[in-house]
Structures are given as C-alpha cells and as structure tokens.
C-alpha cells in the first residue's frame, strides 16, 4: 500500500481548519442577526445600532432575538419570525424572493453589461484603427507625431 505523503494531507488539513474556524458562536449569531434586522420604532436604524433613549421597540426586539438565538432557532427561522411579526420592513435587506430579486440582480447585471459593452466598443474601435493604412515615416510625420505625443502628456 502506498504511503500518503504529509504534503497530500496538508491541503486536507487546511480545508478542515478553514471550515471549522468560522463556526459561529451564540454571541456572534446574535450580533450577525441583530445587524440584519431593523428597529421598528421608526428611527430607521439597524436593531443593534438603535441606541436612542426611550425607544419603544429595540429592547423588546433584542430580547426576542436573544431568546430565539439561545433556543437555537436557525437564522432563517429567526428572520422569518421577525418578518411575520413586524412586517417586511423589519428586515434590513430584502430576501431573494419574487420581485425583491430585482433589487439584488439589477446593479451587478448593469455593471457586467456595461463592462462587456465597453470592452466590445473599445475592441471595435481598435479594429477600425488597425485597418487604417500605416503612417508614412517621413520627417514631417515624425515631427507631427512627436508634437501630438507631447501635447497628450499631461
């Protein structure tokens, strides 16, 4: 039987370490979820960032969140519960459902289309330039090109 080299095991070890390092603890989950929920008192703040005095909602909501996290509810269950109780504005960002998908998709899609469009445009212009005849290499042309080069240096 062939011996397994320690160098073969190393990537496996790295992957194992990598995937176990990020395991979230309760405090971390509470903090994460608390930043995905909005305070519903009307202050328009993220739940864990709402600190104004006399807030009618944040203490109740943070208590509910702590209870849900301690209970071990999944992230989705917690967020769904908050959405059901306080309405869709309780979530700090829309979920990937129905029309809300548009919110997430449109900006990156436009950027990608813009990048492709710019790339194609430059390529088209470049082809046009490439098909142009070679510039005569006489002293007058050289001087002209030199002057243009100087002019275009900022």
């Amino acid at each position, binding site marked *: 039987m062939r011996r397994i080299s320690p160098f073969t095991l190393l990537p496996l070890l790295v992957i194992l370490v990598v995937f176990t390092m990020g395991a979230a603890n309760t405090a971390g989950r509470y*903090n994460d979820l608390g930043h995905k929920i909005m305070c519903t008192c009307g202050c328009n703040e993220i739940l864990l960032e709402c600190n104004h*005095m006399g807030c009618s909602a944040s203490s109740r909501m943070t208590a509910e969140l702590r209870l849900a996290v301690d209970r071990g509810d999944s992230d989705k269950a917690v967020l769904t519960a908050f959405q059901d109780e306080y309405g869709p504005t309780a979530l700090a960002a829309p979920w990937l459902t129905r029309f809300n998908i548009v919110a997430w998709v449109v900006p990156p899609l*436009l950027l990608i289309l813009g990048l492709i469009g710019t790339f194609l445009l430059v390529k088209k212009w470049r082809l046009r330039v490439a098909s142009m005849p070679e510039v005569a290499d006489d002293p007058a042309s050289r001087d002209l090109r030199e002057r243009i080069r100087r002019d*275009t240096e900022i």
Partner: protein
Amino acid sequence: MPAFGSFALLVALALSGYNLLAGAVALRQLATGGRGVIAPERLAETARRAGIASFFAVACAAFALVWAAFTNDFSVAYITEHSNRALPAAYKFAALWSGQEGSLLLWAFLLAAYGFVLRLRHKVDVKLFAYASTILAGVQVFFLLLVNVAATPFSLVTGAIPPDGNGLNPLLQYPEMVIHPPMLYLGYVGFSVPFAFALGALMMRYPGEKWIHVTRRWTMVTWLFLTVGIFLGMHWAYEVLGWGGYWGWDPVENASLMPWLTGTAFLHSVMMQEKRGMMKSWNVWLIFSTFMLSILGTLLTRSGLVSSVHAFAQSSIGTWFWVFLVIVFAVCTFVYILNRDHLRTEHKLESLVSRESSFAFNNLVLLAACFTVLWGTLFPVLSEYVQGNRVTVSAPFYNRVAVPIGVFLLLLTGIGPLLAWRSTSMRSIRRNFVVPGIVALVVAMAIIPLGVHPWTIFTTDHEGAFYAWMTFSLAGFVTTAIFAEFFHGARVIQQKSHQNLFASVVQLTRRNTRRYGGYIVHFGVVLILIGISGQAFNQSVERTMSYKQSFELGPYRVECLDYSQDSNPNYDTEFALLNVYRNGHLVTKLAPELRFYAASQQPSTIVANHSTLAWDLYVIYAGKDPSTGQPVIKAFLNPLVAWIWIGVLVTIFGTLIALLPNLSAAIAAQRHRTPAAEEAEAVPAGRGGD
C-alpha cells in the same frame, strides 16, 4: 428685522428674474443678430449687474435671519422652532441651516455667492460667462421662489410671542455641525456652476475645450467641499450619534454620495476630453447628472419620499423639486439633441490597455456605484409600487452589492496611472506592474497571520474579512504604484539638479500639480478604504457597571471609577468616569455622558473615544439600569478608524496641490540651471499624465 428679511428675499427674486429674462433675451439677440430697444451687449451687462445685486439682497436676508436668532426674536416662527435663549452663540448661527426654511435660504445664499464670483470674473470669456450667468440665474429663481412662497423663513408666529424657543436639536449641538452643513451645501450648490458652464457651452456651441479649462477649478473646489462635507458628516455621526459607526447607508447620506461619485467620474473623464477630444457627450451628461443628483438629494431630504434618520419634516416642497427636476432634464435633453453634432468625438480608443480605456472603465464603475446607491435608495418606493409593500434596503444590501464595486474601483485606481495614453506596450506593463504586484502578494500573505482570513466568506455569512483582505492587498498595490511614480520622476530630477530626493519630489509635484496632486488624492482614498476595511473586525460589549467593576475589550480593561450627574441652563447630564488600562498600565480616562436638553426635552449621548492608529476604544453611556440605578456602558473596539480621518486630510492636501498652478518649465530651468528640454524627461517614458 423679519420684514427686512422678507423684503430682501423679494428683491433678490426680482433681480434674479431680471437676470434670467434680460440675459436670455440678450443672448438670443446676440445669437440671431437681432436688436431691440437696448443693444444686446448693454442688456447683457444690466443682467449681469442684476445678478451681482441679487447676491447682496440674499446676503441681507441671511443676515436678517441670523440677527433674529442672536437677538432671540421669537416673533419669527423659524427662530422659535430652532433656537432658544440659552443656546450658545455658535449654535445660534447654525440655526440658520438647522430647519427646512433656513437651509433653503442657505442654498439660495451660497448659489448667489457662487454667481457673484462668476459674474465678477466675466472678463475671462464674456460670452460664455453670460450664458453661465443666465443659466445660474434660472436656478437662483427656483430657490428664491421656494423661500419666498413655499418655505418662508420669516413667517411670524400666530398668537402671543413665546418667551423662549424650542431650542436646537441636541444632535446638532456639536462643533462640527457648525461647519458640516455649509461645506456639504457648498458642494451641492457648487455643482451648479460647472453645470451652467456645460449647458451654456453646449447652447452656444462653444468651440474647443476652453470651457473645461475655465470650469476645472470650479469643479475641483466644489468636489473638495462636497468631500469635506461628507466626511465631516461621517465624523459627526461617529462622535455624536453613538452607535459606533460612521456610515449607515441612510437615504440622506446616500443623497450626498451620489453627486460625489458622478462628480469624481467627471473629474477623471474630463481629462480625456481635454487631452484627446473624447467622451464629449459623456462628460456633458455626467455634469448634467451630477447637478440633477444634487437636486434629487435635496428632494429626498425634504419630500418625505424615503424614510431617513435625518430628513427634514415632510412637506409639500417635494412637488416643487420634482417640477424643477423635470424642467432641468427637459432643457438638458432639448439642448443636447439640438447640438449633439457639436459633441462629435475627435479620437477613438486605440487599445484596451491604455490610459483612455482605464478612464472609461473607471467611469463605468463609478457610475455603477452611483446607480447601486440610487437603486438601493429608491427600491423601497419601487417595491411599494409593484408589490404593494415597502421593504427596507439598508447596510446588508450595500455591503453585498456596493462594496465589491468599491474594491474593483480600488484596483482600477492602481492600474490606471501605470498605463500610457493611447497604448501601453507589454514591456511597459511588465516594468510597471511587477513591483506593485509583488507588494500586493506579500501584503496578502502577511496579513493572514494577523487575523485577516479571506476564507471566512466560504465558512460564514461574513464577507467583511474577505473584502478587507482584498482591500489591504490592493492598497499595497496602489500605494506602491503611486510611490513608484513619485520615485521615478524625482530620480530623474535628482540626477539633473543634484538636489536631495525630497526636494526633487517637491519640484516634480510643482511641475505638474494636477497629476501629482491627483496621485496624493488617490493615496488619501487608499488610506480611507483601509480605515473602512477595519470595520470587518469591530468588537463590542455592553455592561452595567458599579464602582470598581471592569470589563475587557481587545487589549483594554475598562474600569468604572465613578458615576454622577450635573446640570447647567442648557442641559442636565449623567456621566461615568472610566479608567482604561492596557497591560496593567493606565492609558487614559474616559467620561461618556448622556445629556438631557431642557428646551427641546430631548436626550443626546456624548461619546468618549480613545483613538489610536490601530483602533478606537469608543465608549457610550447608554443609560441607567432601572433596577440598580447603575450606568449601562457600551463599548466598541473599532480598528483602523483613525486612518479614515488621516486619509481625508491627505485627500484635501492632494486636491489643494492639484489646484495650484504648475511651476513653469522656464522658472524651474532657470532656478536649477537645467535645460528646458529636460523637463519632459522628468516623466519616465511610457507613463502618461493624470
């Protein structure tokens, strides 16, 4: 005084109206060769003088409102709502822009001030300035109509005059608030000037690119004001609001970011027009959009269209802004369609690997960032229209969508200056990219043991560490590229003039202030992004504290020394005194406060912050535990925040350098007895301009 202020505003409206009408008639006559009773040149001159006079009239109105605040004239409703007797003098001055009506008066005043300077400098190019002055008068008429009809700052209280006012919003009672709004407004309003020049130049089919040279300083100064305004707002939010952050992606914050992004794109792409006669239509629309986004930002703040932490009270004023926006868009589109043949580009891009194409991609990414912010801001309204219910689009959306765009932009910031105009050879690419690339790789590897683990993007719901890792690595790339540019240029000067390297860098910068000032601005932006990336590693803790109780946060131990309360005529305060230890040694004492303002009956937190280059220990007094009466202390450990403010200072410095005129080649040659021809050699071959 209220009557004087109202009268001054009416006079200003009349003068601006005259400026607009007489200016338009004169320009029409000049364009068609027609003549009226008065010669068009003389009519245009009277219009210009009316514009100058309108500045004095608006200044009188602004003075009247400030005077009313200082003399506690509570017969004026605006002063009753935004000031009180115990308010310190500086904040009475700030009352001018703390409410809807006053801030619109400030808009009108700053616009008139910009117009005043523009009209005084008309001899630079009489015809172009006459067009710009008339267009600016049109904008002035709109804002003066607002303060005369829709949001009058000198309305009187109904019934008995109250003995004291309601006071200024406590959140605004902070030194930065005395300068943040004027700076922001100088930025917003200032974009009216390049807008007026661009529209004017297009209307008159201005030959050449001189109008860009004329407006370059205006645009840069305006951009600088907006930058300073935005960052002062961030600093204010950080130091006053007490939630441990500086940017909440609030619609009003977004409103200031959008014109900044398009303005930044304009500052870059305009160089292509100047140097290569390219992107003319694009530039015209960029500056049109920047102006319209400034107006849209004002609309969002004031109309109640979107929910915001610091929007003004909802009012019908939004309709005015909508109408104005539609008119501006219609005029811009009409003038563009009529004159679009004038904007034909003189050159095409020749290579994908060139300075021009890097500018094109940079513009695209900046616009994509602007669109993302606009999309996120308006999506709740769209959602309500389509789905029948509003959704919230806040930080998690922007962190996922806008941050990657920002990282991509940082990459382009590094690549762009390394490419030559027209085309870059492979040899040049190898020469210019190898060292920055190696530095980026070294940084990427070196920061992993320090706790920046990019792989957490796969293992957790956090993408912050990954983007921070990308940002730090790219920051290494961009910084090396910038320093290499300075180093190579300065070495050439050093060899010729035998000065030390620092003196050579100074001379190099003075020879081409725009280019090297721009690099300094890029370096400032890198520092700002490094500071922002630290956010991925924030920690916080909340504790109820008794005497001598302590908690640990990062390297610090925070111990409660005392807690008490105090009062003065303006507010009552509760505070805690905290000792902060590091490695057993006392490093500082902090005193977070909670104030309760008497006049407005509103509380406000006063943050205590121990800031170092590595991190901020940011402490707030969150209130009293009702069961024990002990203070509740919330503390944050925010890494690298100081670099944001340092980066802003570097950015300001770089912009000021870029605003300086170049040291002429002749003077430089004379001073250092170097032939003028060597000037060109100072710039290494293959490396272009800005």
